[in-house]
């Protein structure tokens, strides 16, 4: 039931959403059982940036209606220590490694991508373009023109497949996907979390100045609550582009995974729902019909 994706041969069509599974921490919790029953056909790392980031102050989590609002703030060791400390561990996983990177300028992104290009342990790169532009404050991925421009600049630095993780916080995600394709993306993945907010609970309504619950102020909504929004975005994107699409957003069952493939996703990613059961993706992969017609059709296209 192998699936070919950007030249990679994957055991099945289910991967993880970046930042929703830490294989190294999971090894500490589940031991070798994790490697014996590794749920993902490819492992996507948490977003890596050039410089280390501590992430946002707590609280970082808010539980919403059938969803989760997080403001983790992309904590990571930074490129250098990721390469020296994490890569050897991740290379031992029984699945190809996709490294997710983010930068706020073309130069930063190029440096990240170049570093990934140099390491054989990395099979492909996923570029997170949900990074706020320093000038406009908008995600650099929200403006099709700017996105294509950045990609054209950085694409030559990578000989491996480039997946662009689109931002859902835009007016026309399909247009952004088209721009990514024009810019040289080999695939696009979506959706990332949607901008959300929560206020600290107040017992009764005390006069106390209301304050945001999340240490980061605002956060991103994920999980079951966003599935119908994600399905609409994935369908719109798959209609517009010819490159493969990685669909995600609230996938919590094999039926959900099929829906995303039915609207044109080649791969699906499980994110928040893994928090309810880390082995969920494994169950989905096993239950999925090996050659799922719509998925295959688009892949062989």
């Amino acid at each position: 039931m192998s699936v070919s994706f950007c030249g990679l041969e994957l055991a099945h069509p289910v991967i993880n959403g970046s930042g929703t599974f830490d294989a190294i921490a999971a090894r500490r919790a589940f031991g070798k059982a994790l490697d014996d029953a590794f749920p993902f056909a490819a492992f996507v790392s948490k977003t890596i940036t050039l410089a280390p980031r501590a992430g946002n102050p707590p609280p970082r989590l808010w539980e919403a209606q059938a969803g989760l609002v997080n403001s983790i703030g992309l904590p990571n060791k930074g490129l250098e220590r990721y390469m020296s400390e994490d890569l050897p561990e991740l290379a031992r996983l029984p699945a190809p490694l996709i490294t997710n990177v983010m930068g706020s300028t073309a130069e930063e992104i190029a440096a990240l991508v170049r570093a990934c290009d140099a390491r054989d342990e990395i099979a492909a790169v996923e570029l997170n373009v949900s990074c706020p532009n320093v000038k406009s404050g908008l995600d650099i991925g929200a403006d099709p023109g700017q996105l294509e421009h950045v990609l054209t600049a950085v694409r030559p630095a990578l000989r491996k497949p480039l997946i662009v993780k689109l931002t859902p916080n835009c007016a026309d995600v399909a247009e952004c996907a088209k721009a990514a394709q024009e810019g040289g993306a080999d695939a696009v993945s979506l959706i990332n979390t949607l901008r959300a907010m929560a206020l600290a609970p107040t017992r009764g309504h005390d006069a106390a100045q209301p304050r945001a619950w999340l240490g980061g102020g605002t956060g991103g909504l994920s999980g079951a609550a966003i599935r119908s929004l994600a399905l609409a975005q994935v369908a719109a994107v798959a209609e517009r582009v010819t490159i493969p699409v990685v669909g995600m957003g609230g996938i919590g069952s094999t039926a959900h995974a099929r829906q995303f493939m039915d609207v044109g996703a080649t791969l699906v990613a499980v994110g928040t729902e893994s928090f309810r059961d880390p082995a969920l993706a494994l169950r989905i992969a096993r239950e999925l019909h090996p050659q799922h017609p719509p998925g295959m059709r688009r892949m062989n296209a």
Partner: protein
Amino acid sequence: MSTRRLPVPPSERTIAPFGRRLLTVTANERLGAYRLLKAADPDGPAPAAGQFAMLAAAERWGAGEDERPYLPRAFSYARWLADRRSRRSPIGGETHFLLEDVGPGTRRLCELRAGERLWALGPLGVGFDPPEDERRALLVGGGVGIAPLAIWQDSLGAPGTVLLGFRDGARAEGATLLGDALLATDDGSVGHRGFVTDLLSAELDRDAHATVYACGPPAMLEAARALCAVRGVPAQLALEAGMACGFGACFGCVVPKRCGGYLRVCVDGPVVDAAELDRVEAHVGSPA
């Protein structure tokens, strides 16, 4: 289910089976202001004291206040009764959790009846370390935070010195979970009127050659941490934080480290050496 209590091997961390499993509730008993939830866990390994599990009701998890809960909730193992059949194997037993109803998730778990089922992932996190150089174990608990001290007392094999604090008499009934304990209540309805940390400082003044094992509300943990710090008494604190996953995936459960940066309570804790922290912040995402 025929069971017998067995001292749990004091290992810092038991590896969890990969993937959540279904437990069957065997009893849900009122313990003063708390509920003691007992469940059969035939495939679960014996937890190390201080470890926790992520729990969710198998049916109707959600649709409470604000349509919650959605994610599972973290609960310390309060007790582990190994199945007789598995005397030689560490697999299979009855697990106990002490619950306080503070919101939609705990409310749903508190209403589970015998025969109903719940999802469990665990044991997770790192537990308590035994005392070194003949120090005595000094167990200090506050409120529902007494839960991990009960299983720790079991696995130490000896009652040791146990100091427990509660807000009121109804909560103080939870103390029956542990062997002979000294009590304190805020309202003085049972034992010393005041804080359990009053008892702790007295104990440490009497004999400071101890290792303190503390679990409870942040204010209590911080007071205990400070008391131990000034006396150079080693302390292991069982922390709490709002959690989404419990296995290091979401980076949501962080607390600041002394040396800067954050640690993840679910994989670097919940039990941490007090020396790792500057202070215990009023944690968020779980009841104060």
